[in-house]
């Protein structure tokens, strides 16, 4: 197939750059990064609050997690076991590793780890559905993969004001579907494939 955009791009400047404004001109896009110029510089990392599924609010400033460094990777995990997820951010400049502690007000939660017997050992690929009253929260157990990062192999549920999950259904990669009723919140549980007992993982 012909290549409408090959890499031989070269753009002569139409005139001299204006020194008063520190103008610059790069004749070839592949050269920009080696020319030592700013390129989308000092942009703030952003935090968007999900306002109920179809509305997003930019709350970057309120989090102070809006570093203007050259951000690259971001992954979340509850590091201190308080049920609120921290953010771990990698940047190529402007602070190479940032760990943002979650200071949002406490709310109920449940972390779920899986132990596969027939399925793979950490239950990767399982779908876990939490039902609280009329509400369903669907999560999949895939270690989050982003650019140059990986999340942990468990699932986090934020539960708001609910201290209990009415029904927790695990669809294992093996095909087994297991249901757990009345699961108390605010802990990290370990569920073993084919076993009705709920094990406390931590705390």
């Amino acid at each position, binding site marked *: 197939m012909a290549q409408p955009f090959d890499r031989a791009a*070269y753009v002569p400047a139409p005139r001299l750059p204006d020194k008063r404004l520190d103008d610059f001109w790069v004749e070839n896009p592949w050269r920009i990064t080696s020319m030592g110029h700013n390129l989308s510089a000092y942009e703030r990392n952003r935090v968007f609050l999900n306002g109920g599924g179809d509305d997003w609010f930019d709350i970057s400033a309120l989090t102070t997690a809006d570093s203007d460094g050259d951000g690259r990777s971001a992954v979340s995990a509850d590091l201190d076991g308080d049920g609120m997820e921290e953010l771990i951010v990698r940047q190529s400049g402007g602070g190479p590793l940032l760990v943002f502690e979650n200071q949002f007000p406490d709310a109920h939660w449940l972390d779920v780890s899986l132990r596969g017997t027939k399925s793979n050992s950490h239950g990767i690929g399982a779908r876990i559905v939490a039902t609280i009253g009329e509400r369903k929260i669907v999560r999949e157990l895939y270690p989050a993969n982003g650019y140059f990062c990986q999340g942990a192999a468990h699932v986090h549920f934020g539960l708001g004001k609910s201290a209990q999950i009415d029904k927790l259904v695990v669809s294992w990669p093996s095909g087994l579907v297991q249901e757990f009723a009345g699961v108390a919140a605010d802990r990290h549980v370990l569920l073993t494939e084919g076993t009705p007992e709920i094990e406390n993982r931590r705390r």
Partner: protein
Amino acid sequence: MPKAKSPPREPAAVLSGPDAPATSATRRIRLVGGFAALAALFAALGFVWMRGRTQAVNGATISMAAKTEDPALPVDLLPPPDGMRVSVPLAASERAYLAEIEHRGLTLSARVFTVLAGAIRDADREKLASLLAPTFAGETLDLSEARGPANDSFVIRRVSAAEGAKPGRVNADEFVNYLLKLRERFGKPPTVKLPLPDGSCCRDGQPLFPVLPFTPGAEEPPTMTIHVGLTSLAPVSRERLDGAWSGGCNIRMVGLTRDGLAETSLKLAFDALRIADVDAIAGDTGWIQSLRVQEAQEQSAPRPLMLETAKARGIDTERFADCWNAPDPARRPVTTGGVFLSDLDGDGRIDMLVTDAGRGALFRGLDGGKFEDVTAKSALPPRCAGIAAFGDFDGDRLPDLILNTGVFRNAGGFRFEDVTGKCTLRLPKGAMGYTVADYDRDGRLDLYVARSTGPQPREGRNSWIDGPGGPGNLLCRNLGDWRFEDVSEKANATAGHRSCFTAAWLDADSDGWPDIYAINEFGGGVLLLNRGDGTFREQPLVDDAGDFGSMGMAVGDVDNDGNIDIFTANMYSKAGRRIFENLSPGTYPPEVFAKIKRFVTGSELYRNRGGLKFERTGNAKRLNAVGWSYGAAFVDLDNNGFLDLYATAGFISVARDKPDG
């Protein structure tokens, strides 16, 4: 050299420009360089154009009428690099026109927005009024009608004309009053400090504000920063550059108030009677004909909702490379390393591998979220750079590690045994990402490898639109006992030889079989639907994918409808948007123009409506303007059961007082 070094650079260079709306700083200067980068695209296109052929672009056949290019080429500033084929871009007159627009944008940013920001900061009514024309006609939005989430910990209120709010028509005095009223919460001058030259609350990893301890309502000296940034610009008449202009800008105030940490931001459209010369414009008066508020948002929190704590957790961040400290900006790696989480000893605490261009490190998670450096006893390679993935490949319940081309068995006690020789995985150098899942549901964890075109693909093999120049992603099936089979082709899992930085597993059609979404550096990504028979079927998410320059992604059910949604972290450029908006009609065939407009669309949220129907919502939901974004994460920060979004931004920052590309 870490493999992170080069690949991201190439696509990134395609787009450039001032960033996301709320980012620009008081002293930030806009430039023409971004234009150059984008114009380069046209150069390549122009080359094809001149040959007057019919080209197939992403399956669509586009008739390219032969066009006689302007034979009068401009004088080049520099000769083209050796061996580089020179292709002629837009007509010289068109390039000059676009450059004039960018030049005025830079003039506004450097010489006018600084004055405007200073006048608001100082509550200088006279100065503000002096900029407005006697015939000024403005529009405001009433923040008392704003709505948004509110609780004891934060209040967010937004009002938007696009969402039906009725703007109020005001004269110059009333508009000045409106602006000054908005800044009032940040305290009276002169207690307001000078603005900071950047757009951030957190700089060099440290919060800028004395955030803790902070007592709401106490007599703290207010600290406020104000930023005004240009978003769009064009002359009203193409033939009259000395005449009227119109455009868009953002005003953002952030600082400490009696309500705590607060931000007020406005999106505005403006009309100018003229844009004076660089040296005259700061002193020009009465030339802003109109300012119309299109969206306003106020937010505050008694205390910051997050807090940077790496050092307090026992992490020596100084050990990691930071390009901002590198002596030669031109030799900085684009990506220095990543971060990979796992519970390596099964104690329920998160452990962490940090790869780095300097010295990587393995951290063991301790109680209270603290970390212990266990690099020394891990027996991992001393230069721990690049990409990695944890996964229990041998089924002993302990997560093993793929680190670049090496395979390491978790031997317990944070020790890793190098089993690269024993393992039949043959991992290619220069891969961009690993991701694990059991795609055939046989109980063994398989590996998917994302691969990009690499730093220097051969000319003619690569396209900037849906470029098929990549080596192809790999799917490695785990056969057990450290034996793996490369089933990439057999399973149809190469993702069409796109240039892929990141891929993620998800069950897109909720059939229980793990699917893959593979993003594309040069166009739309592709969904690989697991047929359940060991093979995958390729399917685009939407017919008109808006992606370009996708570098990262996140998956999760954002609306709790049971269907997994997809966020792609893409490039975004305000300069690029201006340029595309300002191209003469008919410059390119509509089909081609539709493609190249994607280059600056920005990040995208694909909402999964079920039945493999996806809907692009990034633009409508304000998620596209993140900036130049690499990595992103869905995370339920407030534990309300809805996934929130964190998206990184910023490509290469060299000097705060220089123009941005």
